[in-house]
């Protein structure tokens, strides 16, 4: 209304459609980053531009979903995406404490997602714009059984852009399993996790995509006062995969455990990138990253911990270790600490190495054959990390996948 200063300027309030149009505009400007983009130096994805990948739209409806949870011996509610398209049958029969609806053009959800999604990440923009399926999950109270988000589908020419916003109300508690086992050309899940005061998310992610799939995940997490997340990712699949997670610790006493293990064989490329933003005082973050690389595979860990000037009493830890099993395998690590507060405890470390010769000698000196000894040490290196997961149900999902990889087979 002209002349009135008290009325809000309606043109500044964007519709959901507007949020997505803007994301598309940004995407069209930036495109897929190549090796000259610093954040993508080790993992250039500009090759995707030449591939004729089409966002999937149709649900074929081959429901194999609940099988995964059942096979792993857990009882979980499964919401399934096929080639990135939501299978709406998963929205029925939800356990107490869960509300799930389609995102569509929900302006509020899209805006919030955009706020917490990794900034400047191509998937944050493209998946918002090209969303093939989207849901908003609201959690109130303690959900008794785990929720599984299952991503599958065999459209090798498809680009899957599932978009998910998870909101935990104050003091809510959710156990979440994210399971990726598709054969799509590009899997580009965009996930926002908004954790209110005192709420807790226990989450595991399995990235066991098909051998030709490019998996680019962008996840944003916001932690309010006393909120916590215990996240663990296991990556065995895909031709090229990057899990990028940005965490904003914006309420004091927030706690973030974010660990990952990755395994590479053949020409696989596995990238774990994290950005931990300690914005306020008295928060803790801890990251344990371990990788095992065989053949000509490559592993990348980029971890940045940012501690704002006001974020006193921050405890931020990150430790990355990569184990090279072949002379052709390669690991790159770039841990970074940016500390602007003076009263903090922060540590980081990254090591790349081979199996310990002394440990191998000790095992073989007991009569254990060399190959068995080697397998025992590789397993120990990985399983040791899985043992840090407090939630036994979720940890139980990961062990068979790790063991299948160790046994030389494709992940279950």
């Amino acid at each position: 209304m002209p002349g009135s200063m008290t009325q809000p300027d309606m043109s500044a309030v964007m519709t959901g459609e507007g949020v997505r149009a803007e994301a598309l505009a940004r995407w069209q400007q930036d495109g897929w980053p190549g090796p000259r983009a610093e954040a993508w130096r080790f993992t250039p994805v500009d090759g995707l531009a030449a591939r004729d990948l089409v966002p999937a739209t149709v649900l074929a409806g081959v429901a194999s979903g609940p099988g995964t949870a059942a096979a792993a011996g857990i009882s979980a509610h499964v919401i399934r995406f096929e080639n990135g398209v939501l299978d709406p049958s998963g929205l029925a029969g939800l356990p107490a404490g869960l509300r799930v609806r389609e995102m569509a053009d929900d302006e509020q959800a899209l805006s919030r997602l955009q706020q917490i999604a990794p900034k400047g990440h191509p998937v944050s923009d493209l998946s918002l714009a090209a969303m093939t399926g989207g849901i908003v999950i609201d959690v109130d109270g303690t959900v008794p059984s785990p929720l599984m988000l299952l991503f599958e589908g065999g459209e090798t020419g498809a680009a899957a852009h599932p978009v998910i916003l998870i909101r935990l109300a104050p003091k809510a508690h959710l156990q979440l399993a994210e399971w990726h086992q598709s054969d799509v050309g590009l899997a580009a899940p965009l996930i926002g996790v908004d954790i209110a005061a005192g709420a807790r998310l226990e989450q595991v992610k399995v990235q066991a995509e098909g051998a030709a799939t490019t998996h680019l995940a962008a996840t944003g997490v916001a932690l309010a006062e006393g909120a916590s997340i215990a996240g663990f990712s296991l990556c065995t699949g895909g031709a090229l995969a990057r899990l990028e997670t940005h965490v904003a610790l914006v309420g004091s006493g927030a706690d973030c455990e974010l660990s990952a293990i990755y395994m590479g064989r053949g020409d696989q490329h596995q990238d774990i990138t994290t950005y931990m933003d300690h914005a306020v005082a008295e928060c803790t973050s801890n990251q344990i990253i371990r990788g095992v690389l065989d053949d000509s595979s490559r592993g990348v860990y980029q971890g940045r911990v940012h501690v704002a000037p006001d974020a006193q009493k921050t405890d931020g830890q990150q430790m990355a270790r990569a184990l090279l099993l072949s002379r052709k395998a390669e690991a790159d690590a770039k841990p970074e600490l940016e500390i602007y507060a003076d009263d903090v405890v922060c540590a980081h470390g990254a090591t790349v190495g081979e199996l310990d010769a002394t440990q191998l000698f000790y095992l073989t000196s007991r009569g254990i054959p060399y190959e068995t000894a080697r397998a025992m040490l590789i397993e120990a290196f990985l399983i040791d990390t899985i043992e840090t997961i407090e939630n036994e149900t979720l940890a139980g999902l990961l062990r068979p996948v790790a063991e299948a990889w160790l046994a030389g087979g494709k992940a279950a």
Partner: protein
Amino acid sequence: MTALLEIRDLHASVGETPILKGINLTINAGEVHAIMGPNGSGKSTMSYVLAGRDGYEVTGGDILMNGESMLEMEPDERARAGMFLAFQYPVELPGVGGMSFLRAAVNARRVEAGEEEIDQLGFVKIVREKARLLGISDEMLKRAVNVGFSGGEKKRYEILQMALLEPRMAVLDETDSGLDVDALRIVSEGVNLLRDPGRAMLVITHYQRLLNHIVPDYVHILADGRVRKTGGKELALEVEESGYAGIDDAA
């Protein structure tokens, strides 16, 4: 009779440095031999050369077990043939469960001998029984191999492995180092229980005190990579009184 272990004019180097310079030693089944010597005499090198550790290169001579040369055998093959080394510094294996480690070792030997692998339940029973004699608790057995063990616990765990693997030739490398009087007694009793007419032991030590508990049949003094003097158990006492200083002259 073929000796259980025969070391013939053994020369070995670590890197470019010659450490063992012509060792001759014959050990028969049922015997306990002690090797004493000052720091740097080559005691630990000898234990690693016998076990076949990478980087300890034999440049001359031979090592025969039951008349067959071991030089071309890998450490695991030597172990399955009956060689056992109790480490001076047992190695921590984070993430490797103690029971699965012990079972893998025992089963490797059983498979080699054409026996069936031992099942888990039966194995746990055997381990517990032998562990009890060495004062090793169930809690310790559940931990990762050597992780969080005290020095004494590590040495007892070495002897437990020896008891389970029932080697023909056991080499104990400075098993007394870092042990207090009580731990020394427990470890020695464990070792003495394993003395057997079919088994030989080579006890490597810097000090005589271990040999009060594990009484050897023969004592060899090693200096500068050679056996300088051989005698009975009383030779250890001689060294205790007059030190290693006089030994070289007697060579």
